[in-house]
C-alpha cells in the first residue's frame, strides 16, 4: 500500500534536468516565510499573475509579471514578465480577459524554466500583491507541480493593507480597479501581468509611504499589520 503510494508520488514528481535542479538548489535557501527586509532601504517585489480562471483548485498559471521596489522607489529596469507554455490553451472567455492568445500560450517558456527564472528574479525579496492569497496559491501550485518545490515565502496583501492605511477610502474601494481609480493610477493594459504589477506597485509605493509614516519600518511589521486587520475584519462580521 505504502509502496503503491510512493510510486504514484514518484510518477507525479517533475523531471528537472541536472542544471535546473542545481539552479533550484541554489535559490532554495533564499526562500523563506520570514523576511528581514527594511522598508526604507531594501528590495520588495510586487507580483501579479494571469491564470486560466479564478478557481484556485482547477485553474493554472499562464503569466507572471513582477517589478522591484528599492527603498521606496520602483526601478523600471528591475522587472519580470514571462509566459508559461501551456499544453492546452485556455478557453476563449478566459483569453478575452488577459488577451494572451492560444498561440502565445503555446509559445511561452517551459513552465520549469519560467518558474526558475521567477525565483531567481525574486532573489529572496519579500512579495507584495493585491489579493496575495490568489497569486500565492497559483505560484505554489505551479512550483509544486513543475519544480517539486513547496514555495512558501513572505507575502503581504495590499488588499488588506490599503484599507488600513487609507481608511478614508476603505468603504468605497474593494477591488484593485477601485483603488487604481481612487488614486488616478492609469493602466492602459489591465490584465497584462506586468502592467498590473506596475500599477499594483504604485499602490505599493503609497502603502509603503503610509506605513512608514505610521512608524512601521520592517516587512514583518507590515505583515503584522495585515494580520491584525484580518483578525479585526473577521471579528467585525
Amino acid at each position: 500500500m505504502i509502496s503503491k503510494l510512493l510510486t504514484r508520488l514518484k510518477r507525479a514528481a517533475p523531471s528537472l534536468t541536472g542544471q535546473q535542479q542545481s539552479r533550484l538548489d541554489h535559490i532554495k535557501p533564499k526562500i523563506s516565510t520570514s523576511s528581514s527586509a527594511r522598508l526604507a532601504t531594501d528590495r520588495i517585489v510586487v507580483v501579479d499573475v494571469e491564470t486560466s480562471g479564478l478557481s484556485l483548485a482547477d485553474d493554472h498559471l499562464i503569466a507572471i509579471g513582477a517589478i522591484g521596489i528599492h527603498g521606496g522607489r520602483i526601478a523600471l529596469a528591475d522587472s519580470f514578465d514571462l509566459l508559461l507554455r501551456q499544453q492546452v490553451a485556455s478557453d476563449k472567455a478566459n483569453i478575452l480577459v488577459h488577451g494572451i492568445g492560444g498561440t502565445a500560450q503555446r509559445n511561452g517558456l517551459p513552465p520549469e524554466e519560467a518558474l526558475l527564472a521567477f525565483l531567481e528574479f525574486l532573489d529572496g525579496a519579500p512579495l507584495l500583491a493585491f489579493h496575495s492569497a490568489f497569486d500565492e496559491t497559483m505560484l505554489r501550485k505551479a512550483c509544486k507541480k513543475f519544480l517539486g518545490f513547496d514555495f512558501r515565502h513572505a507575502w503581504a496583501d495590499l488588499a488588506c493593507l490599503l484599507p488600513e492605511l487609507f481608511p478614508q477610502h476603505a468603504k468605497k474601494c474593494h477591488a484593485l480597479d477601485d483603488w487604481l481609480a481612487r488614486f488616478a493610477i492609469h493602466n492602459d493594459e489591465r490584465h497584462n501581468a506586468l502592467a498590473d504589477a506596475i500599477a499594483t506597485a504604485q499602490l505599493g509605493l503609497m502603502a509603503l509611504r503610509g506605513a512608514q509614516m505610521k512608524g512601521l519600518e520592517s516587512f514583518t511589521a507590515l505583515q503584522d499589520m495585515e494580520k491584525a486587520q484580518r483578525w479585526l475584519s473577521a471579528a467585525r462580521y
Partner: protein
Amino acid sequence: MSAALIQHLPFFTKHAPFDRMQREHLLWMLQRLQLAYYAKGEVIASPKQGAANRFFVIKQGLVRGSRLAKVPQDAVLELHEGECFPVGALLAHRAVTSEYRADEDAFCFELSAPHFLELIELSVVFKDFCTRRIAALFEQSTQAMQAQLSQTSSEQQPLSSTLASIIRSAPVTCLPDTTIRCALQTMQDAHLGSMIVADAAKRPLGIFTLRDLLQRVTLAGLSLELPISGVMSSQPVSLPPTALAYEAAMVMAREGFRHVLVTEADGTLRGIVSERDLFSLQRVGLRQLSTSLRQAGSVAELIALSRDIRELTLNMMAQGVAAEQITQLISTLNDLLSSRIIELECMNAGLQQPGSCQTEICWLALGSEGRLEQTFYTDQDNGIIFSVAQGETADTMRQRLLPLARRINEALDRCGFPLCKGNIMASNPQWCLSREEWQKTFSNWIDHGSPEDLLNASIFFDFRSLYGNATFAAALRTWLNKKVSTTPRFLHQMAANALRNRPPLGLVRDFVVDQQHTLDIKLNGTTPFVDAARILGLASGSSATGTVQRLRDIAKAQHNNNVAEIEGWIEAFHFLQTLRLLHQYECSRRGDDMNNQINPGRLNDLNRRILKEAFRQSRKMQSRLAMEYNL
C-alpha cells in the same frame, strides 16, 4: 530589454524633450529611471538638501515650486504631468533655489544626478533642452506650428488641399425670381463679384458675375427689373467638398470659368471657390506689392493693396515665418502704404512744390507702429512734428496742417487701420506740434509723472519718423534721452507703473484667466516686456524703439553681464508675439474679428508649457526692473 521599460515609452513619447530623443537614448534613460511616490504636501526637493541629486519628470499629479522669497504670489510655479525639474541646479551642481512640494499625490520618474549628466553628454536633444530651455522648446513649437499651418497654407501644397478647406465663408445666394437690380445691390453691399442663383432648398441653378452685367444686361439694354434667372449662366459647374483644389483649377483652366461651385452630395450649395482663392498667393509677390504701393495713384488703389498686404502676411504666417520677421514685414509694408497715402494727400492738399511735405513736417509713427511690432490688427497711433516757417506761428501752421492730417487719418482708416479710440492721431491738435511744443509736452510728462503722463509716455516715447523730415524725430530723440537721464525720478515712476501689470501666473491654477477662461496675450503677455524694455532702454541711452532691439542694446550696454538672461526674455517675447499672431490668424481664418484673447486651456501641451515659461521670464524681467529701481 525589460518589458517594463517598453510600457513606459508611450508616456515619454508624449512629452518634450523626450518625444524628440533618439529611441536608444530614451531606453538608456528608462533603464536607469526609478518611479517614486510623493504624498500630498510632501517635499520632493528643497534648497536645504544640498546639491540637487535627482532629475524629476512628473508622471502624474501636481508639483508646486516656491521660491523662499518675500512676495508669495511672485514666487510660485506649478508643474504638471510631463514637466521636469530641476535643471539649472543639476547642471551647476548646486542646491535647488525653490522648494518643490507635491501639491496633490504625485508620482515622479527620477534619474540620479550622475545619470542625468551622462544623458546630457549622450543625447544632443536632451542637452539642447536642458541648456537652452525656452529657446529649444520654442523652436520645437515653431516647427509644430509650421507643420500644422503648412497643411492649410495654399502655397506649400497649393493644389492638394480639399475644396472644403479652401471655402472661406457661407455663399450669398438669391432666388431665381429676384430682380437684377436687387441682386446687384446685394453684390454691391457684400463686395461680391458674383452671385449664385439657387432654389429654396439651396440647390444652385446658375451664376451671375459682374462680367455678365456688361454683356448681357447693359449692352443688351435689359431692364434691371427683370428676374436674374434670365441673365444668369445656368447649370454651373460644381464639385464635391472632397474634391481637390487641383481639380477645380483644371475645370477653370479647361472651361475658362473663374468660379467653381462646391456642392454636397444632395445638391445643396456648400460654397464657391474662385480663381483668386486658388492662386492668390502666387499672384501677389512681396516685390510686386511694394512696387505697387509706391506707385499707387489713388487711395482707392491703396485700399485694394492693403488687402494684399494682409493676405501676403497671413500667408507668410502660414509658412511659418518667424514672428519677428512677420511683424517687421507688416510694419514695413504698412510704412510704404502710409507714406504713399501721406504723399498723395499732400499732393491733393496743394502742397505740390517739390518736397514741401518732406522738409516742413515729420510724420511720426507711435506705439506698436513706432516699435515696428505691428500685428495683423493694429489701430493707428500717429503725430506730426512741424517746423514753423518764416512769418508763421505754430498755431497758423497747425490750422493749415490739421485738415490734411484728418484726411490722412481717414484714408488710413479705409485701408484697415481703424481710427484711434484715444484720439492719438495727427489730426488731433494736441499731437500736431512744433519741435518746441513737443519738447514742452514731453518735459511736462517727465517732470510731473501723473498716471496719464506715464501712459502717454509709454505710447509717445516709441516714436519713429515714418515720412517727411526725419531729422526732426532724431533731434527730438536725442533731446529726450538727455532729458530722461537728468530726471531719474521719471524712470522710477515708469518702472513702478509697469510693475503693476503682473504676468498672469496663478497661485491656484496655471494661469490667471477671466470668466471666459481667456487671458489678454497683448496686455498680460507682450506689454510687460515692451514696458520693461522701454524703461531699461531709455535708461541705457538706447535710441532704438523696437523691444528686441532695445533689449539687445541693453545687453550690449551691460557688457555681456546678463546676455543669457536677456536672450531668454527675447525668446519669450518672440513666443508671445507668435502666439498672438497665430491667434489673430486663426480668428481671420474663421472669419471672426481679430482680438488678443487666448484661452490657455485650448493650447497644446507644448505651447501651454512655453507660455508658462514665457510668463516666468516676464516675471524675471520684472524682478530685474524692481531691483534696478528699488521697488
